[in-house]
């Protein structure tokens, strides 16, 4: 039942607003709304009960294993939430003067430094609001760099076919044409194909390494050389940084710019879709273009760097300093992890992924890249099962829900048919991984003995399988009094 359907005229959570209604008649009538907005009218208890009950219809990290590949659904330490929510931090106005911001700015500064060190880049700006905005910042910097050099011929961004959809979409938002680079049979970028297209039109390449295929591109040095030699820059999509934290640095691999997804690698909560945070780090030559604001240290004081200080900056991408509260959570996480903890993240996430891969193979599933090490994630393809049993990846995914596991990422990357991209993360224990593997085996058995059971899944959730086609055809995007 929708909250709107519980509404009764005149009902109110009365303590939540001023008890009296101030007079606004001085605002001329022409500007005032004629009818009150038709928001629900409910008591405090109704609202609390409704949204508490609703929450229980969600899977989440706090309740389930959630091996959603590329999304790094790891445990979000609760301290990050409470410490970022200290009253002094929550109540700070974004325009508060530096004199009243030193504590907050110290956190941002420290975080910039930590991210710099862990990525091996020259400088970091924290302000992009999510991975995709970090991508935008990165590619915009690449463009600003070429523009500043008068290098206006560079109109293309190269993107491997395994890339996340945000990569090509970002390139277009920055005014570039996108050229896709195929992947070789081993999962690495097809170096020859790359060499064939790279040239004076190449502004840069956007790479994820480890890639979304769950493998580390072994030819990364050659790729970097190829692109650099052609005058292009290398963009690192840091969504998979979790796999290599403390093991290898994008800066060392030769990247010029990187974005990080703090809601992945630095464990800020995913919040049902966000907020994230997508700081960017750059090599020496891109430093002038970093988005503002940033925090610098001048003597013992922290100072803001804004448009005035950084005239070549690509500027700001949100009104203030990005998702500041997310940055604070990431900072708390980074401090608890510390120098020792970072490599452990890579180690245990990689261990968990490789373990699952081998055990799933043993259980009869096909790895997309059976000859490769898994990184922190890996792909299995259900092509064979789909063909032989008529039970496809979506069916497996939905049936997993009945077993109490969130499904892995399905049908991505696009180039592997009927794929599941599985990312267990470092925070899950072996018993949980074993439980998932068992569930996969059980579903495989069901797919043989009772395929309809799998095809009709899920069976135990608040709703059965939903009709996406109807949703898109008969658009119903908002409740109105007529809906009920």
């Amino acid at each position: 039942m929708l909250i709107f359907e519980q509404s009764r005229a005149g009902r109110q959570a009365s303590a939540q607003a001023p008890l009296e209604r101030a007079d606004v008649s001085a605002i001329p009538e022409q500007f005032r709304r004629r009818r009150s907005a038709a928001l629900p009218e409910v008591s405090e208890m109704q609202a609390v009960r409704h949204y508490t009950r609703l929450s229980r219809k969600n899977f989440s990290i706090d309740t389930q294993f959630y091996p959603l590949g590329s999304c790094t659904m790891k445990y979000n330490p609760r301290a990050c939430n409470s410490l970022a929510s200290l009253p002094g931090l929550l109540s700070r106005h974004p325009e508060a003067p530096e004199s009243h911001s030193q504590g907050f700015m110290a956190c941002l500064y420290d975080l910039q430094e930590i991210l710099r060190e862990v990525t091996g880049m020259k400088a970091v700006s924290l302000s992009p609001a999510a991975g995709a905005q970090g991508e935008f910042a990165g590619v915009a910097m690449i463009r600003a760099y070429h523009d500043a050099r008068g290098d206006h011929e560079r109109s293309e961004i190269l993107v491997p076919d395994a890339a996340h959809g945000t990569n090509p979409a970002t390139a277009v938002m920055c005014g570039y044409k996108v050229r896709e680079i195929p992947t070789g049979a081993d999962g690495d970028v097809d170096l020859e194909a790359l060499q064939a297209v790279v040239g004076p039109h190449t502004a840069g390449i956007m790479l994820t390494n480890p890639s979304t295929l769950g493998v580390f591109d072994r030819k990364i040095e050659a790729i970097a050389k190829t692109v650099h030699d052609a005058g292009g820059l290398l963009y690192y999509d840091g969504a998979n940084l979790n796999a290599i934290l403390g093991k290898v640095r994008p800066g060392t691999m030769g990247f010029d710019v990187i974005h990080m997804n703090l809601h992945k690698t630095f464990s800020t909560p995913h919040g049902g879709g966000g907020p994230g945070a997508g700081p960017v780090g750059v090599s020496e030559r891109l430093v002038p273009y970093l988005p503002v604001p940033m925090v610098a240290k001048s003597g013992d004081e922290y100072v803001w760097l804004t448009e005035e200080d950084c005239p070549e900056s690509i500027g700001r991408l949100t009104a203030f300093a990005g998702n500041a509260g997310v940055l604070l959570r990431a900072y708390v996480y980074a401090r608890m992890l510390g120098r020792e903890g970072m490599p452990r993240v890579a180690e245990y996430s990689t261990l968990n992924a490789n373990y699952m891969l081998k055990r799933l193979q043993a259980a009869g599933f096909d790895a997309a890249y059976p000859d490769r090490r898994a990184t922190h994630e890996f792909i299995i393809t259900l092509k064979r099962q789909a063909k032989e049993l008529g039970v496809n990846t979506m069916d497996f995914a939905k049936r997993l829900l009945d077993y109490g596991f969130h499904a892995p990422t399905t049908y991505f990357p696009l180039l592997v048919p009927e794929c599941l991209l599985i990312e267990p993360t470092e925070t899950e224990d072996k018993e949980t991984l074993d439980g998932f593997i068992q569930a996969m085996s059980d579903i495989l058995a069901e797919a043989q003995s009772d395929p309809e059971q799998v095809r009709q899944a899920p069976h135990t959730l608040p709703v059965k399988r939903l009709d996406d086609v109807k949703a898109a055809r008969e658009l119903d995007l908002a409740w109105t009094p007529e809906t009920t």
Partner: protein
Amino acid sequence: MLAAIGAQSIDELFDEIPASLRLSQLDAIPAALSEMEVGQLMGRRAQQDGQPVCFIGAGAYDHHIPAAVWQITTRGEYYTAYTPYQAEASQGTLQLLYEYQSMMVALTGMDVSNASLYDGASALAEAVLMAVRANRKSKSKRILMPKTVHPAYRRVVRNIVHNQEVELVELPYDPSGGHTDPSVLEAYAGEDIAALVIPQPNFFGVLEEVDALTDWAHANGALAIGVVNPLALSLLTPPGEWGEKGADICCGEGQPLGAPLSSGGPYFGFLCCKQSHVRQMPGRIIGRTEDLDGRVGYTLTLQAREQHIRRSKATSNICTNQGLMVTAATIHMALLGSEGLERAAAASYQNTSQLVSQLTAIEGVESLFQRPAFHERVIRLPAEAGSVLRSLAAHSLLGGLDLSRDYPELGDAILVCATEKRTAEEIDAYAQKLQRVIQLQGGVKCGLVPKE
């Protein structure tokens, strides 16, 4: 586990990384702290910044947030879920987002809403790009952008859209009213304009002639994009009812609906539009549908607009939304209802009026722009604004936003705001302190006519 993998050591699992690239140390990163230690560190830092009494608005407003909002929002089931890719396992988030969209539709008077963008400024950038795509009549990428739009928003829009060759034409404001006089549009009549941006209230808190502006846009083949404060909308004419046909797109900053100030983020941008433009709208959209048994359920829809499917042809590169903030906003709106929002808005209006009348009672302090305003106003000081604000800050009071960077023509002007949370005592204290500070600093500039 290594045995199952067939590896000798964890290190072996990294053997595909060229050895030359491998990292040995992370020296510059401090050693791990326990939760208690990091708690002590953060406690000190949070305390260090004090909790000054805040009379700044300027895009981020210190409103009361019911205790229930964040106690529910931080439930693990909302807090630690992700994008509802598996709809059946995410009906909590999905139904909530559908309710959110419905509430935004009710508030704005538009037909549809997406499930949020990063913030108000980037939402405006997306709205501009969307208008360019959606306006089939226009071949230009010209956007009329009043100078009364939040300066940071204008910068963000520029930074995001200039790579796609969108041209932003700045419209001046009326120096006495502080609004965009519809007559300035005459200069553009008959030109190919993709859209006109209309802030309400504008950056100065002043109310714009939204009906005239909207009608002008439509008469001239341009789309009308409203940039609105959602709390103000509880009292003000919703964009859907502006002029004859209503605005085509509206967007804004959702922060006043339950997001704490939190240094500027996370907030959320909202974006609503007319039904006809829905396919040009970027960002997640939730639709109501049915399951195999005909039961109502909710799911992500129109995904063909998004980068997952559309890739380089997507409406935007945006992938996340600000889901958690929208969760809070939805609960916030449910708790307050329109009655509660109206009361909060009215109290903010009243407090700001009271503040302005007390401040302008001080000799030399004057209120600029005499047009109707919402809960924000520009006042001009008889002393250097920056220095006055610094003195006030030393008394733990944030007196307003210095406008000299973005509007130097206004002289020592500051933008002040008093939400419903500011008490009569705090307002009195501000007036008293301001008087003292001006007296102390006034020696220099007292009697000078503020520079124009």
